[in-house]
């Protein structure tokens, strides 16, 4: 089984710096890319089937194709790597940032070349102090080796690349919130259209891609679109860094073919539940995805299959809920996060999420009433897709609506018994 993204990452996670990265074939893809036309690279990425790994799964080649190209295109154009990673239960990009920084940088240079960008930013959350120090060192190495700066590898192409370390807010990960943060403003989202591809950072054409997405690019250049497609089991293209956390025997991260079943991830890799515990449910890809249960263990973890059973693959990092964890407390914890991190830009989310949070809190504490379930149902509809400015609120409703479906009896038990059955 091939694991291009994580191959050579050390067991202890210590970074692969330039020499070692080059010894493993690093920057060969860049050498090849600068002899190609930007359009060729775009087509190759399109044909590979690569879809964004930041959660929404938008086809990467297609996204790039909306950038204005050629002599008449506005400049400077920007490429931004999204390394905010504040979604609870998501910890995959950290591995790539800390373990293989040059893979990210090489992927970014090639991607920037493909859209004829002049400047690239690596946006990393502030708490990833070690990661940003590692990337900073790797950046200096790349400049020194002539992979960055003026006339890269003797070609006519030039690119500047900088790190921006964030100061903490979930909304910084949202594509347009991130652009505002980079401009030194509050990370509130922007109205679309115009889309960032035509008017993004400082009003100029901009592409924002996830760290894992960008890390795939050198391998597509080296090995071709067909190879990339065949890495996956279900045709969506590539491998995926899956993860599991919660009370499983071996929490962790594994790069596996895209479309690997949940069973293989949770049972074979994560070792199943800790002794004495049963699987009650799981969020397939971070805090803003719908619960799935044991009956979904044989679902292939890809964008289409997980969508078909009513959830999303999201970031591919599974959060496992065991039978000794209270589902109401679990969902309350998630909604507390979303309510805190709402940017306050639009009313439904700013007002609705705290209401949801307080309602869940009272149910969990044993002071809830039956009508509260209607209030929660109401919110899952009115904070759902199409009613708010960005995807934060609809994302927040995904675990709630599915919990109300799968664990309704637990909610009712809290209300009738006027206590949390999980607390002694």
């Amino acid at each position, binding site marked *: 089984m091939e694991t291009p993204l994580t191959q050579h990452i050390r067991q202890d996670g210590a970074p692969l710096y330039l020499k070692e990265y080059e010894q493993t074939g690093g920057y060969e893809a860049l050498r090849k890319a600068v002899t190609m036309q930007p359009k060729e690279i775009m087509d190759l990425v399109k044909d590979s089937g690569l879809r964004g790994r930041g959660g929404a799964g938008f086809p990467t080649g297609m996204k790039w194709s909306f950038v204005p190209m050629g002599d008449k295109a506005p400049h400077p154009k920007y490429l931004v790597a999204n390394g905010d990673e504040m979604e609870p239960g998501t910890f995959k990009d*950290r591995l790539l940032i800390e373990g293989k920084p040059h893979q990210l940088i090489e992927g970014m240079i090639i991607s920037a070349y493909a859209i004829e960008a002049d400047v690239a930013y690596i946006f990393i959350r502030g*708490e990833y102090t070690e990661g940003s120090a590692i990337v900073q060192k790797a950046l200096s190495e790349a400049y020194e080796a002539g992979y960055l700066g003026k006339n890269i590898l003797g070609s006519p192409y030039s690119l500047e690349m900088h790190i921006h370390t964030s100061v903490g807010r979930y909304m910084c990960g949202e594509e347009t919130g991130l652009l505002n943060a980079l401009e030194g403003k509050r990370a509130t989202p922007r109205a679309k259209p115009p889309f960032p591809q035509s008017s993004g950072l400082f009003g100029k054409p901009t592409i924002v891609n996830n760290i894992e997405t960008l890390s795939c690019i050198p391998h597509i250049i080296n090995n071709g679109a067909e190879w990339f497609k065949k890495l996956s089991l279900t045709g969506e293209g590539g491998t995926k860094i899956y993860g599991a956390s919660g009370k499983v025997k071996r929490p962790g991260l594994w790069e596996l073919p895209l479309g690997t079943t949940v069973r293989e991830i949770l049972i074979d890799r994560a070792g199943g539940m800790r002794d004495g515990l049963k699987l009650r449910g799981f969020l397939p890809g971070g805090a803003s995805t719908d619960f799935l249960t044991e009956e979904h263990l044989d679902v292939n973890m890809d964008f289409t299959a997980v969508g078909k059973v009513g959830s999303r693959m999201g970031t591919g990092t599974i959060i496992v809920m*065991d039978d000794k964890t209270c589902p109401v407390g679990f969902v309350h914890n998630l909604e507390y996060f979303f309510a*805190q991190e709402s940017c306050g830009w639009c009313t439904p989310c700013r007002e609705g999420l705290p209401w949801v949070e307080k309602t869940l809190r009272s149910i969990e504490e044993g002071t809830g009433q039956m009508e509260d379930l209607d209030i929660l149902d109401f919110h899952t509809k009115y904070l759902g897709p199409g009613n708010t400015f960005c995807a934060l609120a609809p994302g927040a409703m995904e675990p709630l609506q599915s919990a109300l479906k799968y664990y309704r009896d637990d909610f009712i038990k809290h209300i009738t018994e006027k206590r949390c059955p999980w607390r002694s």
Partner: protein
Amino acid sequence: MLSEEERKEIEEEFKLYPHKQAAAIEAMKVVQKHRGWLSDESMQDLARMLEISVEDLDGVATFYNLLYRSPVGRHIILVCNSISCYILGYNEIYQALSNVLGIRFGETSPDGRFTLLPVPCLGTCDHAPAMMIDKDLHRDLTPETIGKILEAYK
């Protein structure tokens, strides 16, 4: 007054952006690095340097979790209160910290050593529960190990 060193570092940041305002967050980080927090006075100095109103700058400062508009202790403890840490006993970790330090979230210990703050998922969920003290990540925490960890921060 901003120090010479602070000014120099901020001017370096200006070079990375097409206009000064875009460096607002970076500039506040510089001051915070030197002074620990952002006082009203330094906000005024910064606003002047960035050529924006102090209200606008404050609007940015108050939006973000890691910019501090009131004094903090010598060390900042960020405790993850998100889902995987919640499942694996965040609550006991918080209780242990709170007991040892005699403070709750948002407070600074009377000796000025620690400020205790919650933080969303630290991206190390496979080693939950987790916390950060200054730049150091501490993982797989148990209530028993808390005291020992704190000893290293004088």
